[in-house]
């Protein structure tokens, strides 16, 4: 036991000997948290819309006014011709074109039917779908108004009323959703990268030989080496949660003990993986590259940015060994919904299994003799 403590002591000394490490471990991630939490949103702030009004009638003006009055739209101009308007889309000067053809009002009054055209810059597919939905719904509102005003008495309200309730996040606040996820990334960085690179560093510098000729046992060495980073990661999680509560007021509905319990297991998984990487690679550069590869894949598939359940079946299969996915699930469920232990038993057990697996492989592969 004492041996482990000695190694831990050595690790802490080594880590903090490097003066730039301290701010990097604590300050940078927290800066990131602040910046990224505000950046990650799918909401649309303002649609830059270009109007082409070939009709210039009372009706077309009324329709245009509806967009002018909305804070979601910024009218970047009205162009005389369709061709010029499309040019603006190419130039990224506008996101959307609303084209009202000539004969708009006439069509409405005489035949009761008319058309408008909405052209969207669809490079960002999901944003385009949203923009389109907003614009068409405003046009539909105008439509309903016309019906009501010209034909009183006709019921425009559809019989089925749909009431929407959003639980756990009634304001659809994206930060509430993203911040726990970002915290997970930051904590993973420390747990996976630093621990992995640390091991390889000894190999690279050559001090590992010196350790190997001592009577220290494998598990003692590994435990001692991993503990400091595991500890730092948990400390960072705590600090991060505190800041998150302070700055973003994210709800902490559930039991924090559950979170830290899950975090403890999760970080063991990460440290274990870092360790396995270090047994495969010879240099810190390789170790970092490999870790980075896995991290990117795990994070993208974890449901942090995009819903994990929407992935095809083979991807979900791969996801079943993705520790990030389980941890994010636990974080979100406990923090935002107040899930109890029996609710998160499945992901928690999965994490435990992964931890045992990772450590077993790591200890097995680590040889005191080269």
């Amino acid at each position: 036991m004492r041996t482990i403590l000695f190694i831990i002591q050595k690790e802490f000394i080594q880590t903090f000997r490097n003066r730039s490490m301290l701010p990097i471990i604590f300050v940078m991630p927290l800066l990131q948290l602040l910046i990224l939490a505000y950046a990650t949103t799918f909401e649309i702030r303002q649609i830059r819309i270009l109007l082409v009004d070939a009709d210039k009638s009372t009706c077309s003006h009324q329709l245009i006014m509806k967009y002018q009055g909305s804070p979601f739209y910024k009218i970047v101009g009205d162009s005389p011709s369709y061709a010029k308007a499309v040019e603006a889309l190419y130039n990224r000067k506008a996101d959307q074109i609303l084209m009202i053809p000539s004969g708009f009002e006439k069509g409405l009054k005489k035949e009761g039917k008319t058309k408008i055209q909405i052209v969207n810059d669809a490079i960002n597919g999901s944003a385009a779908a949203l923009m389109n939905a907003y614009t068409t719904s405003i046009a539909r509102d105008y439509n309903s108004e016309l019906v009501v005003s010209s034909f009183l008495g006709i019921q425009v309200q559809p019989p089925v009323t749909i009431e929407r309730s959003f639980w756990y996040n009634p304001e659809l606040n994206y930060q509430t959703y993203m911040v726990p996820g970002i915290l997970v990334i930051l904590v993973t960085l420390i747990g996976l990268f630093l621990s992995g690179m640390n091991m390889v560093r000894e190999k690279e510098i050559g001090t590992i030989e010196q350790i190997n000729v001592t009577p220290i046992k494998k598990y003692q060495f590994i435990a001692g080496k991993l503990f400091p980073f595991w500890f730092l990661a948990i400390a960072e999680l705590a600090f991060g949660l505190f800041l998150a509560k302070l700055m973003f007021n994210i709800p902490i509905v559930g039991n924090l003990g559950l979170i830290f319990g899950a975090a403890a297991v999760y970080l063991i998984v990460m440290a274990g993986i870092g360790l396995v990487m270090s047994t495969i690679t010879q240099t810190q550069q390789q170790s970092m590259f490999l870790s980075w590869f896995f991290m990117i894949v795990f994070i993208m598939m974890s449901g942090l940015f995009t819903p994990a359940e929407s992935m095809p079946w083979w991807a979900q299969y791969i996801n079943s060994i993705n520790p990030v996915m389980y941890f994010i699930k636990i974080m979100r469920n406990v923090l935002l919904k107040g899930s109890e232990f029996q609710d998160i038993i499945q992901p928690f057990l999965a994490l435990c299994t992964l931890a045992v697996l990772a450590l077993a492989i790591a200890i097995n592969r680590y040889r005191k003799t080269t």
Partner: protein
Amino acid sequence: MIILFGMPVVQVLIFGFAITTDIRDAKISILDHSKDYMTQDITRKLLSSGYFVLSENLNSEKDIETSFRKGKIKEVVIFENHFAENFEKNQKAHIQLIADASDPNTANLIVNYTSSIINDYQEELLKLSPVPVTITSEVKMLFNPELKSVFMFVPGTITILLMLISAMMTSISIVREKEMGTMEVLLVSPLKPAQIIIGKVIPYFLFSFIIAVIILLMGFVIFKMPMQGSYLLLLGETILFIIMALSLGILISTLTRTQQVAMMISMVALMLPTMLLSGFIYPIENMPVVLQWVCQLMPPKWFIIIIKSIILKGSSFSYIWKETLILFLMTLLFIFISIKKFKIRLQELKN
């Protein structure tokens, strides 16, 4: 080596096929107090849409909380009592949708899809009494008619991998020499410092270029990405970006002393912002204004605009000269600062 080239391939495959912002097979629950022909019709319509999958039929409101907490379902559709009766007799029937908004984006999409399916059902029933005045909107999605999200991801993946290889790995490699002490040995040799650096950097340049080409090929061949613009321009801009990233890597290496620090800086100051602030996943126009300024400083942001313009819009140089100039100036800046720092170091060595 396998990892070096296999990694981008695997990533592009995963991003292209697995990651999507859309809804597919979302688990929902139905709480049906009426169980009449109408509610069953609507339920059938919902479940055959491809968006939803039935997780369970709940029996009471009490079970909703537990189901949500377990993360089993994303939405509950509640039909009131005597639904069909109310619809036909009183022209007023009520459906409540409760969504788990811990993921607000998905919740919003799910609720919107559910509502529009229900509204479609209504419109079919009411076809007998058409609305007297209709404005139809003709919708055109320019540059990406099928709203494929893979077109967003391929340029983004190229950017991230280039940043990784050119900036991160270069910086770590140079710092390694410093850390090992072999840099001193190189510096006192007859080799000029510029030669040393260029020699170190060329392998990464080649790797980056080959990987970029592989990813682009995958995009065109596997994902059928359309190429509207000039290949030459695309490759030219890619080379510019690689040189920029290399110079950034060199710059980082002049600022740090150990590999660990170099890696952490690259990771934290480059990778995460590249993923999130470059417009790769989250559109920049939707961020708070202050952040948008920060994004302007990110080289990846400009490169992504350039790539997307060339590939999807077929832009010629006249459309993207501004962004190209910015990348070029950034490169010059990085090289300039690196040279200055290096000279200081050489002075220290001589003294």
